[in-house]
């Protein structure tokens, strides 16, 4: 487990102690960097650094509530730049640096920080504030029996394309058993960036969740298919589901079926259940792009969000149960936090059982990975309570 710990800081920050040193020169900066991990985490304060000649340096992040370009200050007499942010315990922040030099601006990962986070958009640096630790169940565990991944293709009349699906079958898969089914939107990204297979292997091994079959689905035109598309809902419910239930030993009841997704994928999950309210027992919605308007038409999301806004507005005006249980998670540092918080009472008013979890993280795959234990163990509880060794 990787953890960043330390007492709440009361003493002078390292960077301020350095500022007071004389003579302050390149050699001093070298020694300072050799002594510290970057960013420097001291209590709730994190100091970000850049070393090099530049006209300006900015910290680029997506922490909702803070200016997204935070200027770094140059330490007099050196080419060391710094800015200190207060990050509450448990925070995890992805960021980059923007370096302006001779009229050129370049956005780079932090050369002083080896920690990287990856996503379909590329990589970025990541800061672990005090108290954040990489959950051990997200890392490969040699003790955990590995499930298997099987690729298949489902021809879809609804979507007018051949749809790839990656199936996860749990270790010791048996034809005589009956498994719940989890359908995962953006399946390839969950597998690649959220360690979904490792997480499933570990949570099943630790009895935190039931043995399940998961179907990782891949979008075609994502912004169309995942934005309340009738064709997508029909594909999942009238084409994929019957085929999987015919070919695999699945529970085949609403309580044994769940839809999962993040961002637009969460919209797709909700919209699919909305169109087929008797099909799915549970939803696992992460950082849903539940953009809506209370009045007027200015939602700020741009054209791709138009169908989403229409759908969410309609749902909020007349909420109805679309599943029995809904797990909702969102990062407090993402702009969607307000939208997701606003959906919780709406889901509850519709009569669904809701579990809502927030984390000091952003709109990213690692945040979604880190919430999977709470979500999956709630949606499909494991046999832990039955096992007494």
């Amino acid at each position, binding site marked *: 487990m990787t953890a960043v710990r330390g007492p709440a800081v009361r003493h002078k920050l390292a960077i301020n102690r350095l500022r007071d040193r004389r003579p302050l020169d390149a050699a001093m900066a070298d020694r300072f960097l050799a002594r510290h991990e970057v960013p420097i985490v001291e209590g709730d304060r994190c100091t970000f650094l850049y070393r090099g000649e530049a006209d300006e340096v900015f910290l680029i992040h997506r922490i909702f509530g803070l200016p997204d370009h935070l200027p770094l200050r140059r330490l007099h007499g050196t080419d060391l730049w710094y800015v200190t942010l207060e990050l509450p315990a448990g925070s995890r922040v992805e960021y980059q640096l923007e370096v302006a030099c001779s009229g050129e601006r370049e956005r780079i990962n932090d050369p002083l920080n080896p920690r990287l986070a990856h996503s379909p958009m590329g990589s970025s640096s990541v800061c672990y504030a005090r108290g954040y630790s990489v959950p051990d169940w997200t890392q490969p565990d040699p003790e955990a029996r590995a499930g298997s991944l099987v690729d298949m293709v489902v021809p879809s009349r609804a979507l007018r394309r051949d749809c790839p699906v990656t199936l996860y079958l749990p270790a010791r898969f048996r034809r*005589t058993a009956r498994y719940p089914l989890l359908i995962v939107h953006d399946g390839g990204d969950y597998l690649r960036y959220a360690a979904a297979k490792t997480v499933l292997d570990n949570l099943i091994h630790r009895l935190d969740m039931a043995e399940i079959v998961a179907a990782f689905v891949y979008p075609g035109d994502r912004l169309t298919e995942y934005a309340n598309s009738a064709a997508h809902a029909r594909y999942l419910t009238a084409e994929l589901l019957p085929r999987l239930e015919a070919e695999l030993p699945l529970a085949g009841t609403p309580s044994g079926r769940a839809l999962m997704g993040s961002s637009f994928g969460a919209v797709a999950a909700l919209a699919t259940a909305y169109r087929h309210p008797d099909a799915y027992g549970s939803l696992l919605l992460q950082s849903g792009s539940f953009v809506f308007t209370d009045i007027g038409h200015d939602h700020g999301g741009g054209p791709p969000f138009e169908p989403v806004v229409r759908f969410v507005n309609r749902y909020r005006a007349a909420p109805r149960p679309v599943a029995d249980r809904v797990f909702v998670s969102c990062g407090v540092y993402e702009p969607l936090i307000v939208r997701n918080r606003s959906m919780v009472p709406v889901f509850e008013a519709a009569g669904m059982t809701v579990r809502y979890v927030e984390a000091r993280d952003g709109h990213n795959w690692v945040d979604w990975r880190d919430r999977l*234990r709470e979500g999956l*163990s709630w949606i499909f509880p494991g*046999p832990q*309570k*039955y096992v*007494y*060794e």
Partner: protein
Amino acid sequence: MRVILLGPQRRPTVDTAIRSLGLDGPVATITAGWQEREADDGELSGLLGGRATNLGLYRRWLDTQDRDPGYAAAERRVQGELAELQDIYLLRLDHALRAVYALQRRAGDQLHDQLHAEAIAAAVAAVRELDAAHLRRVNGVRGEFFAELLPHDRPVIAAHRAEVAGLLGRAAALVIAGGHVGVLADVLHLFNVAAALSGRAGDPAVPVVAWSAGAMALTDRIVLFGDRSPQGPGHAEVYGSGLSVLRDVVLLPHARARMLLDDTPRMAVIAQRFGPGRCVPLEGGTRIELDRDRGCPPGTRVLTGDGRVAALEAA
């Protein structure tokens, strides 16, 4: 019948327990709670001095699943019904226990004030009623299932039952290991281990040594519990009946690790729910020897009505 209950066997004591019985002959073992790992019993066999004969109840259950599809389908149906019953019970239990805890909080330091005490007692009584009704319902469903399926008339099951009875008939003692208590209870019922344990004509009943889930499966009331799950503390819930060799005792293996034992108001509710039955923590090193017709012996550590763990005094 002599029964020796043990705590979790991370540091094994089962060998000492078996030796203390002073018996000769094979020792039947049940490791079905380990499910797919049932056959990985080399260490246990070694502790028993190579005298172990594994009854292979999980393997027999898998075989039944394969060779008697009618039974397998019916079992899946009844498991679905039982799961639904458990969900409904848990929903009601959640509300009933929230009421108890809310009253405890409201009482604060005046827990023993008559008005508050009566309100809490009434709320606990409602939970007891719910627990009892659920147990009756679950046992009723299981009873109807066996009455309808007539397992003794089904060739595959009947053959396994005969083999199990034969092995148990030759055994000097029976050892039941821990593991998945639901699986254990199911296979013990399916292969009619209770009948074999109840004693053959003219023979004394076979002594039993059991730990953790194996011990729970001997009781008439299996209570599931776990305060350290990913979702936080859960409610102790009645699951069903085991072999009912032991009555009026609720066994709590690994209680220190799995329960918030220091939360005495919470533990008091558990003790009060299942009283006058004894709630008995089974920790590593615990050994309790008892007779099926007698209660827990003096010295047994139990949850008291005020939520502490204390040793029973002689009556």
